[in-house]
């Protein structure tokens, strides 16, 4: 227990990094996932094809491989650099990997949401002269999003936990810090473990509650 108190600043900083990874990747994945969903329902076969290939490739590769590719492939081989600081650079590379991976799941969730919007909504929108893009932006996607708030919450929870894989390229988020503390405090492994586990619950349980509440509040009455 003393170990937890003694190392509190380190643990706090580690979780703050976990939170930043989650928020940045979540936002990027939401934007990219929405674009992918729009591509997958577009009338242009080439866009549909790109969307389909992306989702099926990325979704079926283990996240560890995606992150390691971002760290080594992008970072070392292609020399993609966001910062002179190694740790900041690794953070951004891992955000790219987490976003790219999570976007595939966001896309499929939104596509499921689009399927809940009755055909007549899009037809009525076309009938007053909205273009395909306007139809998607003003009529179909707003209703699709409201239908999939709860599943998007699940994806955000999964993302929060998936940020631990950034440890594979040396990003000092919560799980990597936990391992480091295990080594420094061999006699306090169990309290440290429970401390970190509790930290994740504190992050993820409210996400589930918030998104469940939002889903009810924002539901479209038909």
């Amino acid at each position, binding site marked *: 227990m003393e170990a937890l108190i003694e190392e509190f600043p380190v643990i706090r900083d580690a979780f703050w990094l976990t939170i930043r990874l989650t928020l940045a990747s979540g936002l990027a994945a939401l934007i990219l996932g929405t674009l992918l969903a729009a591509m997958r329902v577009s009338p242009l076969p080439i866009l549909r094809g790109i969307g389909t290939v992306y989702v099926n490739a990325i979704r079926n590769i283990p996240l560890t491989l995606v992150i390691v590719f971002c760290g080594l492939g992008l970072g070392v081989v292609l020399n993609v650099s966001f910062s002179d600081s190694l740790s900041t650079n690794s953070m951004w590379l891992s955000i790219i990997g987490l976003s790219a991976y999570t976007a595939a799941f966001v896309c499929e969730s939104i596509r499921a949401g689009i399927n809940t919007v*009755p055909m*007549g*909504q899009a*037809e*009525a*929108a*076309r*009938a*007053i*002269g*909205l*273009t395909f893009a*306007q139809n998607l932006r*003003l*009529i179909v996607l*707003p*209703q699709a999003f*409201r239908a999939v708030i709860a599943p998007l919450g699940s994806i955000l929870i999964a993302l929060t936990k998936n940020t631990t894989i950034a440890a594979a390229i040396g990003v000092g988020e919560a799980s990597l810090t936990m391992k480091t503390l295990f080594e420094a405090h061999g006699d306090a492994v169990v309290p440290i473990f429970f401390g970190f586990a509790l930290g994740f619950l504190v992050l993820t349980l409210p996400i589930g509650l918030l998104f469940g509440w939002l889903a009810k509040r924002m539901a*479209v*009455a*038909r």
Partner: protein
Amino acid sequence: MTENGDTTPLVVLEGVNKHFGSLHVLRDIDLTISRGEVLVVIGPSGGGKSTLCRAINRLETVDGGTITFDGRPLPAEGKALARLRSEVGMVFQSFNLFAHKTILENVTLGPVKVRGVARAQAEQRGMELLERVGIGSQASKYPAQLSGGQQQRVAIARALAMDPKMILFDEPTSALDPEMVQEVLDVMVGLARDGMTMMVVTHEMGFARRAANRVVFMAEGQIVEENTPDAFFTAPRTDRAKDFLSKILTH
């Protein structure tokens, strides 16, 4: 070209054919709709009435033949098609009001987003139209809070908000509870009196007699008979029409 008194037809269909797989739903349709005309299309279900109606704003594509609207062939896609659709109002059987938008937003969306009308101006016009169809007091509600009859009147106001050259009605009263049919038909009769060009797929004989200039009877994808409402309902010429009318007029 589009001034009042223009005698060129608004819609011309020539040799229009359409298949759904092996089903031939429109067979060699020739039909002309004049400006200001109210055309009622009736006939047995599966006879191609709705498909014909939806082909005019290209919600259904056709396999053969030509359709012209206001002197121009229907555009195939893109901005030109969107512009054509903005000039042709459509009222659906299942209302299809935008479920996440208020009643007033339903009516102002088209003018603001398609026509670029200022929001304040669109809202003022929208309120006038909602008053006209008797829904003014419900403007801030959502579609699901209204009855079917009210929703369908909003759908008519939404179509009117675009100042369309014509309105297509695809079985506008078929999904309504019986006591709500009249309120919708009254609005439609008012539109007809004001000179709106209308194509109405319906089984409402009362509406046809009160408001229509012409009745087209469709069966098995063909136009079997066309006549004035009185002549058609009192003295149908074809056996197919006699048979159909005997089934719907006996009760």
